[in-house]
């Protein structure tokens, strides 16, 4: 297993650069995707009042469809 130093340098400088750029673009798009705004607002508010116990439906009755309380 002898990987030459030059290969590492080349790899970091090419692939490393492009995958970071791709990631930044992807994440920025996700964070600012207009239709997600609602979901983010709801999430931000969801923690303000959360001491009323786990949501019902915990017993396996399809909790995904439960309205968030």
């Amino acid at each position: 297993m002898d990987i030459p130093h030059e290969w590492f340098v080349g790899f970091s400088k090419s692939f490393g650069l492009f995958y970071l750029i791709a990631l930044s673009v992807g994440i920025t798009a996700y964070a600012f995707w207009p239709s997600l705004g609602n979901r983010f607002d709801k999430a931000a508010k969801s923690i303000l009042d959360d001491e009323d116990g786990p949501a019902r439906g915990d017993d396996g009755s399809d909790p995904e469809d439960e309205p968030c309380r």
Partner: protein
Amino acid sequence: MMSNLTRAERANAMVIAGTGAFIGLVMAAAGRGDPMGAHGWIVLAFCGALFFVVGSAYEDPEPTQDRTASYYDDPTKVGILIALFWAVVGMGMGVWVASQLAWPDLRFDAAWSSFGRIRPVHTSGVIFGFGGNALIATSFHIMQRTCRARMPDQVTPWFVLLGFNLFCIVASSGYLMGVTQSKEYAEPEWYADLWLVVVWVVYFVLYIRTLARRNEPHIYVANWYYLAFILVVAVLHIVNNLAVPASLTGAKSYSAFAGVQDAMTQWWYGHNAVAFFLTSGFLGMLYYFLPKRAERPIYSYRLSILSFWGITFFYIWAGSHHLHYTALPHWVQTLGMTFSVMLLVPSWASAGNALMTLNGAWHKVRDDATLRFMMVAAVFYGLSTFEGSFMAIRPVNGLSHYTDWTVGHVHAGAMGWVALISFGSIYALAPVLWRRETIYSWKAVEWHFWLALAGTVIYVFAMWNSGITQGLMWRTYTESGTLAYSFTDTLVAMHPYYVARTFGGLLFLIGACIGAWNVVMTIRRMPSETPERDYPTSSESREPALPAAE
């Protein structure tokens, strides 16, 4: 506490503790004459004690079936108390270490009390003991609240919490016996490392299982930070600790890496321990407790996502700034430096997001010391990341490296950011967890706040002065081109700052003691809260214990 476990769970716990005790016995027998043997006895005592605690409650009535209606908070409560205990121990050690630097006679001539041994007891005690327990406890709290789901079972969280503390005990007792791998923040030897891997993987799986049960479509951003903390620390820990034990019956091992690769692996680990242990998880705390305490949603949720990915992906590349001007290839140093400077953007985005959340609620910050803890923590987070990015620039590092400037930077982050956000979160959490009307003494919280702030400021300013003085003295030449100051001259110049640092640290320690006392008094003396609406309670004592409907 035990009454919340079903009989099957108690049996499970006993099997695990019994296995642990057996392993301890084997270690004690095999490692006779080596520190590993002493560790065996410690493991045996720890697991044996747990075995009997659970065993003595084995026959107690089982809990009723209403458990799913409430969150499982027992491990969180214990975790908070353990964190406060470690805070006092770890910071007490810090004050002792600081005193030794000012008055070397305080070493007392024993082997175990030498600087090189108690210093890692301080660092591990505060980072892992205090910080780690605070992170684990708050993560249990937050993951359940934000998922609106109870943890999937009741033995795993105990395994994680107590297993982690066993690691901390083995680590710090080992340092006192002289056991070390000589890797900073990763000093414990191979068997302790292996044990931590087990605990950490269980922790990760527990988190994922809770997330899988969630009743919220979106995973609140605090969870992302906690998950990054758990996942990345696992990776770092495993890679940096790859080593071959010299023998299976002794503590000594040899690293799989050598030379500059070893150095790079260690500081890739070291810096990401800062990033993912001392930053990411605590940002999770910040993103949950600060908005909650201020009763305002986070200023920009989108920004919190963006800074999450920024921090995660930039930090990984920054470790080489610890190795400027070494045998490490120049381009790797430059890479680390560049990423460190870029890191300022997501770091300040987080700090700014926190402060903007408080914009419009400054009267609350003024009146409420708990919220003030969090606000000041965010400010120190901003400060220490700015300083870090600056120190990562190679020529600046040429001055700061090896000096107390680094120590000042460390404690601006560790005391100002990590400890303050933890104390703020603990004060916010304690009344909620124990269902008390409020914290025992608001005055004491105020005292703690001012002591902590004064202590941090004194500490950090002392170290900045000391570090820059030291750095400049080292590079002052006479006309004939020789060094103007001897090493001893620099020590004499630093002495007053060392005294000041010890004093600042003492203030900080007193604050932490007041905090621990206040939380204990809250639990013992404050009346239970009369709930406005029906809190789902767990089936502890008050309700009739029905036999479990199998």
